[in-house]
């Protein structure tokens, strides 16, 4: 029986953050309710092919992301989870994550999540510094987060992630260090630390993306400061028992996010909701990015058959995101050729420059610390 990961997208939030380029926007209660019905229809439809009424794949990880899925009511959450169970077999030990925005879930809702089967929470905190939070346009402050976090522990969650961001406007290495330590002291099982990217089409883009800085706006940290923050993250978190296992992800042993790893090792997954992507064997397809269209028909925005060349490239491009890198033997097993055979010259070139390395036993190919800093340059050559 084939395993599969399921991703459910909830494209609504209280208010759009100023850096956010995700598929997410505020919407009223009735539209949000209608959306959940639609999402359940999609789950039922895909079940005919891959679920209980199809080839009966077993869901080993489930991730409900957004947007702010914690905006869903208790009833909606349990209803949605029921829908999944009805349509897919879910493994006994499945990792079932849900994103929570501080200030959108009290102990009652968190308990309902727990009861519905959710066993991992991901808090979008971003910073412990209220000034920084305000500049980002977040709806919560650090104190509200602490309340939510305590409530989650009280509701019985034993696997919690906290999202943080570095390279924020006006952020210094010092203030970022304080955020890191404050978060680590809470002892979540997992931390994601993302360097802020100024995306086109966001309010931040009009401030930082082009031309000169409008008056009164704090500057972004320089590239050197940003890299300093990146190195600090690994150092400080290791003091608290976390290891980096992917470019932006840190975990206590055994708490690496299995759902996300399935993206990087290219296991099969199905995505539900607008903009959600699925990988089934050699085919990747992505739902329409328009919520309105999604409400009318389940159109795809992309449907890409992946030939062997692309599959090999993706294996390296995604695998190198993880600190343990690409499994050389698994590569041979899948494609019948060795990494060296296919990419010998690129591997040689960047090994010589100190950007790529092999594990001591030669079984894995990975980026060095220097390699991570400029990984786009390197992985682009595998495409």
């Amino acid at each position, binding site marked *: 029986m084939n395993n599969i990961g399921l*991703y459910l*997208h909830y494209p609504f939030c209280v208010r759009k953050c100023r850096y956010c380029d995700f598929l997410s926007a505020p919407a009223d209660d009735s539209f949000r309710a209608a959306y959940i019905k639609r999402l359940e229809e999609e789950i039922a439809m895909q079940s005919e092919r891959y679920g209980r009424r199809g080839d009966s794949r077993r869901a080993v990880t489930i991730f409900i992301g957004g947007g702010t899925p914690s905006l869903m009511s208790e009833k909606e959450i349990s209803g949605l989870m029921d829908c999944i169970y009805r349509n897919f077999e879910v493994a006994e030990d499945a990792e079932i994550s849900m994103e929570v925005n501080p200030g959108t879930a009290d102990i009652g809702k968190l308990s309902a999540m727990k009861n519905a089967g959710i066993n991992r929470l991901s808090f979008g905190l971003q910073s412990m510094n209220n000034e920084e939070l305000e500049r980002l346009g977040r709806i919560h402050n650090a104190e509200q987060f602490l309340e939510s976090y305590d409530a989650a522990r009280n509701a019985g969650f034993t696997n919690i992630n906290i999202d943080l961001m570095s390279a924020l406007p006006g952020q210094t290495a010092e203030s970022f260090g304080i955020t890191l330590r404050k978060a680590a002291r809470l002892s979540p099982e997992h931390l994601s630390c*993302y*360097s*802020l*990217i100024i995306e086109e089409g966001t309010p931040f883009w009009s401030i930082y993306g082009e031309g000169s800085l409008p008056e009164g706006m704090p500057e972004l940290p320089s*590239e*050197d400061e*940003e*890299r300093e923050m990146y190195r600090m993250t690994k150092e400080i978190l290791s003091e608290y028992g976390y290891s980096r296992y992917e*470019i*932006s992800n840190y975990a206590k042993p055994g708490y690496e996010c299995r759902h*996300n790893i399935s*993206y*990087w090792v290219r296991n099969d*997954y199905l*995505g539900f909701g607008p*903009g*959600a*992507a*699925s*990988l089934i064997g050699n085919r*990747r397809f*992505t739902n329409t990015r328009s919520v309105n269209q999604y409400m009318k028909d389940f159109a795809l925005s*992309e449907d*890409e058959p992946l030939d062997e060349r692309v599959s090999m490239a*993706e294996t390296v*491009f*995604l695998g190198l*995101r993880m600190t343990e890198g690409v499994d050389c033997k698994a590569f041979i097993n899948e494609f019948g050729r060795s990494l060296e055979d296919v990419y010998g010259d690129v591997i040689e070139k960047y090994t010589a*420059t100190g*950007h790529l390395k092999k594990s001591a036993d030669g079984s894995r190919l990975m980026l060095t610390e220097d390699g*991570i*800093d*400029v*990984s*786009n*340059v390197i*992985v*682009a*050559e595998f*495409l």
Partner: protein
Amino acid sequence: MNIDQQHVRYFCIIAHIDHGKSTLADRIIEKTGLLTSREMQDQVLDNMDLERERGITIKSQAVRIIYKAENGEEYFYNLIDTPGHVDFNYEVSRSLAACEGAILVVDAAQGVEAQTLANVYLAIDHDLDIVPVINKIDLPSADPERVANEIEDVIGIEALDAPQISAKNGINIEEVLERIITDVRPPEGDPEAPLKALIFDSVYDAYRGVIVFFRVFDGKIGKGTKVRMMATGAVFETVEVGYFGPGQFIPCDELSAGMVGYMTASIKSLKDTRVGDTITEAASPCAEALPGYRKVNPMVYCGMYPADGAKYPDLRDALEKLQLNDASLFYEPETSQALGFGFRCGFLGLLHLEIIQERLEREYALDLVTTAPSVVYRIHKTNGEVIDISNPSNLPDPSEIEFMEEPVVKAEIMVTTDYIGTIMDLCQERRGVFHGMDYIETTRAILKYTLPLGEIIYDFFDALKSRSKGYASFDYEFEGYERSKLVKLDILVNHETIDALSFIVFEDSAYTRGRKMCEKLQEEIPRQLFDIPIQAAVGGRIIARETVKALRKDVLAKCYGGDITRKKKLLEKQKEGKKRMRQVGSVEIPQKAFMSVLKLDDE
């Protein structure tokens, strides 16, 4: 065919750029009734589509039309088109030599410009009858009386009764047509004398070989005539002779003294039919050739390389084809360490270079890397040897050089008095030697300079236009070689000399140019995984340095399921960008960086 020479006229139209030469030509063709307005496509003489439709290349350099004059008689008009740029001065002079008259078109608002003068002097040199015409009288800013006075004052020809026309709107075109009869003399020439014909152009046709355009001065030429080209010595038997209708060749049995036409003779190469050469009969040649022939030498050279090295054979084929139709295009294979296999190409001037470059890119779909244009330097070596070099990389070691010479031009710049100071500054910066200034009227003057060709081939024209707000015009002709203090400036990227970036420069400007070049390259070369020093050196001595700092950060913070397709595309784009760069040692240099030297004067 016999035509009374009294009823034949040969003329060309000369004008400053944009004064309406082509439009007037169109109107003349239209008015003589050969084509209706509807059939008349704009600018028949320039029309490239027409050439394609016929599947052969006619440059339509000449057209014969029939004009029914007011006196009721019919006249044969032969309009010979001339290229309109200083690069093609020699071709212009040969076209003029095939005419008895020239219609001088002057813009009613702008008045006499530098090119007007240059062309008119050329026409006077060829003893042409000049018919001044004032065009664009429909413009609100038109001042035909002032312009007529200007023509009289500046050029010294009668112009007060010049036809005032609007070629665009077809106003007073008849007056021009009548003037051609009264003001241009009919051809002379003895049909019984030995054949003497002037080649004023030739084109290559894939089916018929070279088609030679000529004007018969004496004698006759018919089908099967055995002819000899007096300068090249080539001998051919004509296959076809004929004359020109608009956009078409009309064969006939014979062309005699005073006629313009074409011949084909299964000629394989344009090299045998040089513009300006004299055609005569092989069996009974004329005593001496027509004057004025010279072999045209390229003035400006550059390296042209295919962006994709595998396209080298395509580039060679394309150049070969272009040369069939353009004898002044020169090319020979060359190799560059930085750019691989390519060609050193020679052109009449920068415009010619640009035309060829554009045709290679458009018509042959070639993506090119072009090195900075260079003039031909004359090197006097210590061993007494004198060599001409067109590629800075071939400059001998400085210890072997006694002295160097560079080409200079005689330039005339016409400018409104407000800008005289600015333009003199510009010429000074470009090492111009001032020879004097003539006022044409109270508000305008002609500045006379000798300028090194190397100083004007890049951007002189643009600088002139921008500094004078468009009020200066410019014309030049080759003057000769002058001794000069020149050095080769080498550019080192990551400690390696990049041959394709070397250029020869006036010694005193070497430091400034070197520094600017380094700054420019620092902007053009993207950051890579390590620091890249960029240095400028003269004779091994570093005179300027910049550094492209190593890339510190290029990493995707996030990449989850929904991001993969998009991020992959982003990276693929990044990789595509890399493909457009040249790998030199371990450094990737964007192709446009090789043209950097051209932009050194951008402020």
